């Protein structure tokens, strides 16, 4: 789902904008935090300086009292004071010794609480100012800034929570605005699949929002309208020709047939009329095949579809074609390793596989072999017809599906060039797959993949 969403521009933009905005928020908050921390440190330093200044101005007698007073005034116990002799002995204040790391420049500095844990047991961060006094004495004024640090940490956590919320809001907004587009793309995908499978009446769906996808769908639909119209014109023209010729041809055949039936076999014209009858039948058979392909392609007949077991169809086919193979001196073998139930038009599937078998037997030389297999998992059964004939060159495998196309090797063998077109039309009607490739025995292997195909079919 995320991958699908990520393909939608509006979602990516929403996430991108959300991310940039969240980054901006973080940057802003870091700036505010830094300024706040700096200001708070300045305030603490100012206090330390003021206190040091006051102590510096006190007389030796007052100093002890002033320090005691400051300690008493510090109700939160965050202030530390100490007056030490030059040797470091404490004279006044609440510090037992001079903290390690003191700098005696009269300016506030951060002091390590790790090495001075005995002096500041509950402190997290301490700032301290050291100042030399008259008579070699040394003054230490320090302040625990843990509370300020806590405030700063709280602020930081709040800032990051807000940034995360903004980012999530951006993603949620992206999903909200992009999900209809994802659904629309799915619908378009399904419609495109149906069109790719030969349903040229299908159109890309239009949404209610009239956004760029709809504009694109409208353009594609207009192209499909035009393509369908042109195809319809071509088809109507060829169908009309087929229809208009079939009726007079049928009447011609009837006249020949009646004359043929009423003629003595010894008549010199009998053989010629016999030949004419056979040729007319061949011609009519081709027109019938053309009309049948056209009917299957255009009418989208689905009334004959029902859950059908494939095994019995193949056994019937073997029953029908095995004698023909035997008569042609071709070995016939059938392997049915499963008996799946498939939603299909059993009669049409029989006709399609029958055509494949007819071709296989026709093109396999005497002594060769034809093999029919039904295999695969129940959801994806594959019917394959393999022969040891000359096969079809890879570059001709698509062309042989066109009406009347005959591969180079097939030109000397009787046939109309419509058999594989009919198979292709039937397979397309079912949205099954159809693949032609090399057989193990060196001939052709034709496979019907008996489950709905999605995209491009293997060739």
């Amino acid at each position, binding site marked *: 789902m995320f991958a699908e969403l990520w393909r939608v521009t509006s979602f990516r933009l929403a996430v991108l904008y959300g991310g940039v905005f969240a980054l901006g928020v973080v940057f802003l908050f870091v700036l505010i935090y830094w300024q706040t921390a700096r200001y708070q440190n300045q305030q603490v330093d100012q206090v330390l300086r003021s206190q040091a200044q006051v102590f510096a101005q006190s007389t030796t007698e007052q100093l002890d009292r002033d320090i005691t007073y400051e300690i008493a005034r510090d109700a939160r116990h965050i202030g530390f004071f100490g007056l030490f002799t030059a040797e470091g002995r404490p004279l006044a204040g609440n510090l037992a010794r001079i903290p390690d790391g003191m700098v005696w420049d009269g300016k506030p500095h951060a002091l390590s609480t790790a090495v001075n844990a005995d002096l500041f047991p509950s402190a997290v961060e301490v700032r301290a100012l050291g100042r030399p006094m008259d008579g070699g004495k040394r003054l230490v004024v320090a302040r625990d800034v843990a509370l300020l640090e806590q405030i700063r940490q709280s602020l930081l956590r709040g800032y990051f929570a807000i940034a995360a919320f903004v980012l999530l809001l951006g993603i949620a907004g992206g999903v909200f605005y992009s999900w209809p587009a994802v659904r629309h793309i799915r619908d378009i995908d399904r419609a495109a699949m149906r069109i790719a499978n030969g349903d040229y009446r299908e159109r890309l769906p239009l949404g209610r929002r009239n956004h760029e996808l709809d504009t694109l769908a409208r353009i594609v639909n207009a192209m499909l309208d035009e393509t369908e119209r042109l195809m319809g014109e071509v088809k109507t023209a060829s169908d009309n020709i087929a229809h208009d010729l079939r009726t007079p041809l049928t009447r011609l055949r009837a006249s020949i047939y009646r004359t043929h039936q009423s003629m003595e076999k010894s008549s010199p014209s009998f053989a010629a009329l016999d030949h004419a009858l056979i040729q007319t039948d061949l011609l009519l058979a081709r027109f019938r095949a053309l009309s049948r392909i056209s009917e299957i392609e255009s009418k989208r007949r689905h009334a004959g579809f029902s859950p059908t077991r494939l095994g019995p169809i193949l056994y019937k086919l073997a029953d029908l074609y095995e*004698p023909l193979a035997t008569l042609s001196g071709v070995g016939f073998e059938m392997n049915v390793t499963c008996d799946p139930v498939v939603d299909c038009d059993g009669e049409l599937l029989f006709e399609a596989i029958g055509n494949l078998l*007819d071709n296989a037997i026709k093109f396999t030389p005497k002594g060769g072999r034809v093999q029919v297999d039904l295999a695969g998992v129940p959801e994806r059964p594959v019917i394959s017809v393999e022969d040891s004939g000359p096969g079809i060159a890879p570059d001709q495998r698509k062309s042989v599906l066109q009406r009347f196309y005959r591969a180079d090797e097939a030109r000397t063998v009787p046939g109309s060039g419509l058999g594989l077109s009919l198979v292709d039309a039937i397979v397309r009607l079912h949205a099954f797959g159809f693949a032609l490739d090399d057989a193990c025995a060196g001939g052709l292997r034709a496979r019907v993949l008996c489950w709905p195909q999605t995209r491009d079919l293997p060739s």
Partner: protein
Amino acid sequence: MNTASTTPTGRVLVIEDDESTADEIVAELTSHAFQVDRAGNGRAGLAFALRGGYDVITLDRMLPDIDGLGVVGTLRAQGVQTPVLMISALSDVDERVRGLRAGGDDYLTKPFASDEMSARVEVLMRRHTQAAEPTRLSAYGLTIDRVAHTAFSQMGDLGLKPTEYQLLEFLLRNGGQTLTRTMIFEAVWGYHFDPGTNLIEVHIAGLRKKLEKAGCPPLIETVRGSGYRFGPA
């Protein structure tokens, strides 16, 4: 004379609005010794048919007033059981099913070979006039057991495979009549499309061999350009 069978002497009603098609049907049926009446629309056809006396009716599916489905539906509702061969330009399998469900007995699509049409009419007439078929049929020195699905000659069991038995039974039941490849394919394999010339010929050849081995005279005649006829040559 290599003429078509002239044995049938039945009455056929042709209901067809297209004149040239009707001429074709009438000419073909007349050449097979049928007495033919014709009606140019559904209403007239229905009136003729209800009057009775016909062995078979050929009925166009698309008629200007009452269409073919309406005509056959009315006939069946009125208790008229005359066999109906529906003829239609609509070859879709849905149409075939619809026609047969409405009460038609057989279905043929236009344009059709006239001998195929007459062969179907003959089979329909035979089926209609035959009494209930016994479980054992005997003809031309052959006996078939329709329960055990076996066939015998004077020399014993023919040892037929199931398909060969079905083929022989269909031929025997319609002995003396021309049966087209499509009709045989429909009856034996149950599918409705043209199986091509070779296939049925191969199966007929196989059956001929078995009959010959069983000491039967040549019983399956090839009717050039049409199909086969069962019976003594």
